[in-house]
Structure formats: structure tokens, C-alpha cells
């Protein structure tokens, strides 16, 4: 799992220590030796999402990333390096941090598929295998939250809204 890239990226939303509200990274400036370091070291420019206030060349250590970030990055990595093929009928996914029913910290990773009233046994089998591979990959990252990997039909969200 060492291939998963956790470097800051332009466009990424973050919090900044000592400042309120969310910022967007506009520029990333790695230190010259960063390729030899085990983790990213360098500076970033950020811009406040609502006021446009800019902070330039601040150390990356000043940033506070969302809890879900490593999960998103890991799933991105998985798309390019699938242990099990990433089903092409998965249209989206969402990661949510909250407690599970026992009150323990958890990630809920939900993959959305197109509605299907009668999914074939092969599709269910493939999905089950895929969810298992995502779970295994996330467990290998030793995150501090348990990854619950789920699938849901996309229309479920519409039903809730209507």
C-alpha cells in the first residue's frame, strides 16, 4: 500500500490551523529533496472558500486534512491498481466518518450503482468480491476507524429527497 499518494494537491479542501473556515489548496511547492523523503515536506498556497482570503507559502504541517482523505486516496489508487476489477457500473462513491452501532469510530464507504430491480447472481457475486477487496485494502492501511464497505442503488438518495 506504499503506493498510495497522500501528498497535498491543488483543489483539495482543507482546514488551516489558527484560521476558521475551509480553504482550497491553490499551489503546492515541495521542498527540493522531497522525492527522497518518506512523506511530503513543503509549502502550499491556500485560498478561503468563502472570503477568498489567501495564505501563501505556508508549511504543509499547518494543514488539517479531512479524516476521510486517506480512504478517498486509497480508492483512487485502487481504480488504477485493482486487486479485483473495479466494476464499470459503479457510478459514484461516498465516504462518511461516524460511529458504528457499538459507538466505535468507523468509515462508511458506500459505492453507488445504477438501480437494478433484478441484479443477476453474477453481478451480486462480483460486487461482493469487490467490496471485500476494498475492505481488505483499507484494513491494510491500519486506519483508526473501521471501514464498513457498502453498496447502494443511486435512486435511494433520490427517494430520501423526494
Amino acid at each position, binding site marked *: 500500500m506504499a503506493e498510495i499518494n497522500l501528498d497535498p494537491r491543488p483543489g483539495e479542501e482543507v482546514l488551516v490551523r489558527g484560521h476558521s473556515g475551509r480553504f482550497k489548496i491553490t499551489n503546492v511547492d515541495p521542498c527540493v529533496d522531497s522525492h527522497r523523503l518518506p512523506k511530503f515536506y513543503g509549502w502550499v498556497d491556500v485560498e478561503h472558500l468563502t472570503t477568498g482570503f489567501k495564505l501563501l507559502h505556508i508549511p504543509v504541517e499547518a494543514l488539517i486534512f479531512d479524516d476521510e482523505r486517506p480512504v478517498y486516496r486509497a480508492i483512487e489508487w485502487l481504480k488504477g491498481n485493482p486487486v479485483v476489477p473495479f466494476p464499470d457500473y459503479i457510478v459514484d462513491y461516498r465516504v462518511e466518518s461516524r460511529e*458504528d*452501532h*457499538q459507538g466505535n469510530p*468507523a468509515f462508511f464507504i458506500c459505492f453507488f*450503482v445504477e*438501480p*437494478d*430491480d*433484478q*441484479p443477476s447472481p453474477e*453481478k*451480486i*457475486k462480483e*460486487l*461482493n468480491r469487490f*467490496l*471485500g477487496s476494498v*475492505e*481488505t485494502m483499507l*484494513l*491494510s492501511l*491500519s486506519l483508526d476507524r*473501521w471501514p*464498513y*464497505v*457498502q*453498496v*447502494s*442503488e443511486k*435512486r*435511494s438518495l433520490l*427517494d*430520501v429527497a423526494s
Partner: protein
Amino acid sequence: MSLAEELLAQARFLANLDPQSPSQANLRRAVSSAYYAVFHLFSAEVAAQIVPVGPSGLRERTQRALNHNSMYKAAESFSLCSLAGTRPRNLPMDIDLPGPVSAELISVAKGFKRLQEERHAADYDVSKPFDRTRTLVLVATAEGIFADWLKEKASGNAPVFLASLMFWQLWNK
């Protein structure tokens, strides 16, 4: 047919009802039945291990004594075996595992934990609807647990897993 097998069949039956427009009640009951199928599979196995022969009623009482929280914690620990090597975290060191924890047993443990969480959502969380695909995947997870357990139950680690489900929270007192 055992109660566990009946519940598993019921889960699949409910998950496939109403071909055009599945009802929330049936889908949620299907998920709940899938979890309880697995719960009763293991509670019966645990009771049979603890009370192989004995007076009438003792095995049933033993089965009744299992609790979901202890099973959750044991399942979590066995789920993590693929990371930590061969030994479930917090399994007392004086319990000698005869061999590495198999992929089947890890899969059983992961599936159990996932199903317990989903059963809780199915029974109590009305904010998120269940759909056919999600439900059938969970029923398939339960069926996978039955299949994996069939391969695993004769292994040397199976008795350790079963005892863990029962005693996990008591072992480290």
C-alpha cells in the same frame, strides 16, 4: 433444516419478493434474517462445542448466553489477522493457535461484523432506505459465511474462534 438455515432461506426469499417494487419492510427483514442466520449458525456451534452431550436444556441455555457485543469484538480481532500475521489481537497468549488463521476464517469474521452493522441499520435506521442490490449483496455475504464455515469448521482454529465468540470479553479479566 436448522434454524440458521431456515433464516438464511428466509433472507433470500424476502430479498427477492416484489420483483418490480421491493418493500422496505421485506428488504430490512431480509437483512435482519441474514444476520440472524449467521448469529444462530455460530451460537449453535458454540453451544455444541461447550455442551457436546448433556442434560436437556443445557445446550439451549448456553446458546442463549451468547451476546452480540462479544461476538462483534471477536470478529473484529479475527478480521485483522491478515495484517498482524497469524494471531488475533488480544487473544490470550496461553491459547495456542494450531496454525495460521485461514482466509476463510478471516472472511467469516469480516462478514459477521459487516452483517451485524447492517442488521442494526436495517432494524433501527430509517433515514437510509435499503434497496435490492444492497440487500442481495448482504444475503450473499451470509451465504458466503455458511460456505466458508463449512470448509473451516474442521480446522484446529475453529474451536478457538467459537470460544472467542462466547468468551472474548471475559478472557482478559
